[in-house]
Each structure stands twice: as structure tokens, then as C-alpha cells.
């Protein structure tokens, strides 16, 4: 095989990247558009830093679900884990002290496991199940907190400023993202999850214990969400709201789909979600800076969600059952 000569290498890499990650084009276009429209506001270090902050927030919640989506299921409970986790920290602070922060990843782990078991054994469609879990957790959060937003002090070290303009949360997040991508691309677990997403029946016939790996997928997702919630929790100032915001729930989904992970599963995953989250954050930031009505952002989010799903579902044939 002829090795392409050095001059052609870089364009070749770029074309390959665009083929694998088509959303890069979109991202690039957005960056160009917004930079040229609002150069004074968009290209400032402060703005870029804000973009990174929002990207981190989005990514922390999108990481877990992006693993579940690869198997073809959905996990909508991430907001719930964050909220309930947060309020549990507040609750357990007097007794457990600093260690109470550990309750969040544990909660995520436990939730993921329970959801996975119910999904695998009782066969409820995952999104209804996780949506109900979300609602239950929200309710529990409200019950425990008495309806008031509570905050917890003492964990500021997690997000204390280290490098100017780069949010410390990003430094925590990068290893987590790398871990997620590693699991999905280079371990047996990851490969099996992709197999289950592509063709569950085939995977089963090939000898993969589908139930076990589905439970594993949900558990891992819960764990990542839990860890992410710890960071996000402090990112937000150590408090959780008690109202359910539809946006917070939908944005990670948009990031996942925009990045190129089809909802039917089988491809994509955390590595693609990174780009999706980045693109969406840039878009939101740009729109906020523009003169559009802030409420328009929600509209555009919804349209974007639909458009991305349509674009990624093009391959489906036949009768969709659901």
C-alpha cells in the first residue's frame, strides 16, 4: 500500500476526521459564523472560558447516557441522580462529614444497577423506566429538602481556580472522559455493548450474556453520572434545585444525538458525544450572545434535537415498532 506523501497527509487526516465525525463541519461553521458576527464578544478569553464551563457541565451528564445509548436503550435518570445525590449529601453532612460526598457516586451506581436489572428482567422500555426513576428521585429530593434549595459548604476545593480561564472542573472531567472512551473502545465490555446495540438478537445468539451486559451498561452509566454529579454539584456552588427543568434533561440527549450516536445504538458513544456537546455549547453560547430572544434557545434546542434524530435515523427501514 502506498503511503501518501507528507504534503497530502494533513488534508487526508482532516477528511477522515470529517467522515467519522460529521458534526465537526457544523462545529467549525458555527465557530466561524459566531467569530465573524460578534468578534468582540465571542473571541474573548472570558467567553471561551464560559464555553468550557458549560461544555463540562453538559459532558458530565451526557457521558453516562451515551454509554447506555450505544446499547440501544435510553437513560433519562441522570438529572435525578444529581438532585437526589445532592440533597443526600446535605442530609448526611452532619453524620458523615466530608465523606458524605461519596454518597453521590454510590447512588449513581445503585440506581444504574437497579434500573439495569428491572430493564433486563421486567422488560419495560428503558426510557419510561428511567423517566419514572427521574420523577421518583425528584419527588424524593423535594421531600427530603422540604421544597427549598439546600446548599452544602466544604467542597470548594474541587473547583478552586488553578489555571486562569480554564475551569478546574475541566481538569477533573478530562480523565473521566478518557476513562469512558477507553472502556468503550478498548475493552471487551465496550465491544460487547456495541454488539448488543447493533443486533441484540445476533449478540445473544453469539453467546453474549445480553442481560448481564445491559445491567453493566446501566450501572457504568450510573457510576459515571454519579461521579459527574459530584463535580457538577460543586460547579453549581454546592446546591441542587428542587424543580425539574425540562431543558437540563434534554440537553445531554441533544449532545449525544448531535455527536452522531444513533438512538438505535451500535455506534458512536462517548467519543462522539464530546464533539456533540462542544458543538451544542458553542451554539448555545453564540445564540445567547446574539440578539435573539432567550426563549428562542429552547425552541432551537428542540428543533435541533429533532433534526439530529432524523438525520441519524435515515438508515432505519421497515416498521418502527415504538
Amino acid at each position, binding site marked *: 500500500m502506498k503511503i501518501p506523501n507528507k504534503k497530502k497527509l494533513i488534508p487526508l487526516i482532516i477528511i477522515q476526521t470529517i467522515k467519522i465525525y460529521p458534526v465537526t463541519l457544523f462545529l467549525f461553521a458555527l465557530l466561524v459564523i459566531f467569530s465573524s458576527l460578534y468578534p468582540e464578544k465571542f473571541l474573548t478569553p472570558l467567553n471561551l472560558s464560559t464555553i468550557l464551563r458549560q461544555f463540562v457541565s453538559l459532558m458530565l451528564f451526557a457521558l453516562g447516557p451515551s454509554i447506555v445509548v450505544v446499547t440501544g436503550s435510553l437513560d433519562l435518570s441522570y438529572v435525578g441522580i444529581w438532585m437526589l445525590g445532592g440533597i443526600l449529601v446535605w442530609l448526611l453532612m452532619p453524620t458523615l462529614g466530608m465523606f458524605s460526598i461519596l454518597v453521590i457516586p454510590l447512588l449513581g451506581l445503585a440506581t444504574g444497577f437497579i434500573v439495569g436489572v428491572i430493564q433486563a428482567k421486567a422488560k419495560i422500555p428503558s426510557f419510561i423506566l428511567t423517566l419514572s426513576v427521574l420523577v421518583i428521585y425528584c419527588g424524593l429530593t423535594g421531600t427530603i429538602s422540604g421544597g427549598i434549595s439546600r446548599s452544602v459548604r466544604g467542597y470548594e476545593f474541587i473547583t478552586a481556580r488553578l489555571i486562569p480561564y480554564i475551569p478546574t472542573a475541566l481538569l477533573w472531567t478530562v480523565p473521566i472522559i478518557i476513562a469512558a472512551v477507553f472502556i468503550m473502545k478498548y475493552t471487551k465490555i465496550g465491544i460487547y455493548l456495541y454488539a448488543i446495540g447493533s443486533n441484540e438478537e445476533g449478540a445473544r445468539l453469539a453467546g453474549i450474556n445480553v442481560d448481564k451486559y445491559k445491567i453493566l451498561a446501566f450501572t457504568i452509566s450510573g457510576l459515571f453520572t454519579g461521579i459527574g454529579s459530584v463535580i457538577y454539584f460543586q460547579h453549581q456552588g454546592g446546591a441542587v434545585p428542587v424543580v425539574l427543568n425540562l431543558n437540563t434533561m434534554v440537553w445531554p440527549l441533544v449532545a449525544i444525538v448531535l455527536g452522531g450516536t444513533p438512538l438505535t445504538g451500535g455506534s458512536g458513544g462517548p467519543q462522539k458525544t464530546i464533539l456533540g456537546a462542544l458543538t451544542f455549547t458553542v451554539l448555545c453560547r453564540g445564540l445567547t450572545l446574539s440578539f435573539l430572544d432567550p426563549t428562542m434557545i429552547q425552541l432551537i434546542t428542540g428543533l435541533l434535537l429533532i433534526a439530529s434524530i432524523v438525520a441519524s*435515523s435515515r438508515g432505519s427501514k421497515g416498521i418502527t415498532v415504538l
Partner: protein
Amino acid sequence: MNNIGPIIAAIAIIGVFQLINPTFLRYQGIITLVYAMSYFLIAACGLTFVIMMGSFDFSVLSLLKLAALICVLYIDKFGLLVIPLALSICVGFGFINGLLFAKLKVPSFMATLGISVVVEGISLYLSKGFLHIMNDRTFRSLSVTFIAGIPSIFYWAIGVWMLCTFIAIWTPFGRRIYAVGGNPIGAMLSGINVESNRIYVFMLSGFFAGLAGILYMAQFGGGSIEMGADMTIPLFASVVAGGTALTGGVGGPHRTLLGVIIITWIQAGLLMIGAGRSIQMVIFGLIAIVMGISTIDRRRIKIIK
């Protein structure tokens, strides 16, 4: 189990709450229940058709809000014409839902979720977040005219319910919905135009969501973007609690009446014993899961995502 279960549950719940508070069933209590139940029942009937078909419609509540908001915002400009306006818009969104699902193969919950975000965005944009008060007497009389001691919205609800039951059981259209829900591939092979029927069903669901919203606005007389914040799960729970399974092909609007009674009774009862909104969320989430588990037809599902 599917047939007797909801009836037993309804009687049990009524019994339990009666024991807790014997004055529950006085006239005032019944009126409160009627007010809570009626618009809910209308929206739930629309949703029932979708679930009967084996799909989901997240956007019912958002469309309800949009219809209500359109009424209150434009009643001064258009008078009572806001009613057909709101209804057409809701049917239009239902049509888009159906299109996304049937033609573009977007999974129904995703399509309706996206649409509900869009609709919420529109509602937010139109209402600017403020509370709006409905002052038009004629409009409000739609729901609050007392006939034989019961507010008119109740008669609307019962009328809608009877209409939906009729459509489901005695029209070819209804039969087709059952067929598509019970066995989509079989339905297609026997000549049913699955895609068109799916679109019609989503339009129907949109229509009833809009109707529920209009009557809701007439009943309450005011509203903002915050109303009905987390009613999606109770709505879904009431359809499933009535015996309409998620897998589709069984149940129907006649069962939904029972489900709505159960859910609204639980809601009222919980309020009565002082349980706040949060506990209600927990309980309804649990109910949704439990009812979902118990009504799913195991035989038909090999692969569930």
C-alpha cells in the same frame, strides 16, 4: 388480571380514603374531584389512542399548555375564534409528531419529546413567563356553567370519553388502531396503511390535548408557563392503570376512565393527608413503573430497549 385489576384498585382506593376521611365524598369534595378529573380525562383519552397503538406521546401536556396560553393571550384579539385556532395548532403539531414518527422513523417518544421542547419554547416565548388572566365570561362559561349542580366541564369530559370509546370499539378506524398496536407487521400485511393511521392517531391526540387545554383555561381562568409542571407521569400512569398496555393492542378509552379515577383520587387523597407535591411525584413514578411492569404483554416482547 388486566380486566379486574383496575376495578379492584379503584374500589380499594376509594375505600381507603373514605376510611381516612369520611367527609371526603361530600358535595364540595366531589366538585373538587370533578375539576381535577375532567380536563385530565380528556387529555388521557387522546393519549390512550397513542398508547393503544404501541407508541408514546410526550407532547400532550405541552400542547395542553400551548392551547390554554393561546386562548388567554389572544381572546381579546380574536374573541372565541381562539378556540378553533388553538385546536388547529395542536392538531398541526400532532400531525408533525405523526410525520416524524411514521415517515421519518423517529422513535415516537423522541419525536414527541423534541416537539414538546419546541412547544414549550413557543409557549415561553409567547407568554413571556407571566401569569395571564382570562376575563372573558363567555369563554369561561364553557367549563364553569353549572348544570344540575355539576360544572359543565364534567359533561364535556364524559362526552369526550363516550366519543372516544365509540371510536375505539365501534369504528373501523378504532379497530385499525388496535390492529396496528397489536401487530404492526401483520396489520401492514393485511392492507392497513400503518403510516397514515399512525399520523391520524397523533393528530387525534393533539386535538384532545388542545381541547383539554382550552377547557382547562376556561376552568381555571388563568395560567402561566408553570402550570401542569409534572403531570406527564400521572397522565401516563392513568392510561396504563386503566389497563391499556404499553405494548399496545389492548385496553382503550373505556379503561382509561377507570385509570383517571384512580389517579385523581390518589392525588386528592394524598393532598388530603397532607402529602406534598414531592411525595406525589414519588408515588406516581412508582405507580408508573409498577403498572408498566404488570401490563406489558410478555409474550410479544423479545427485544425491549
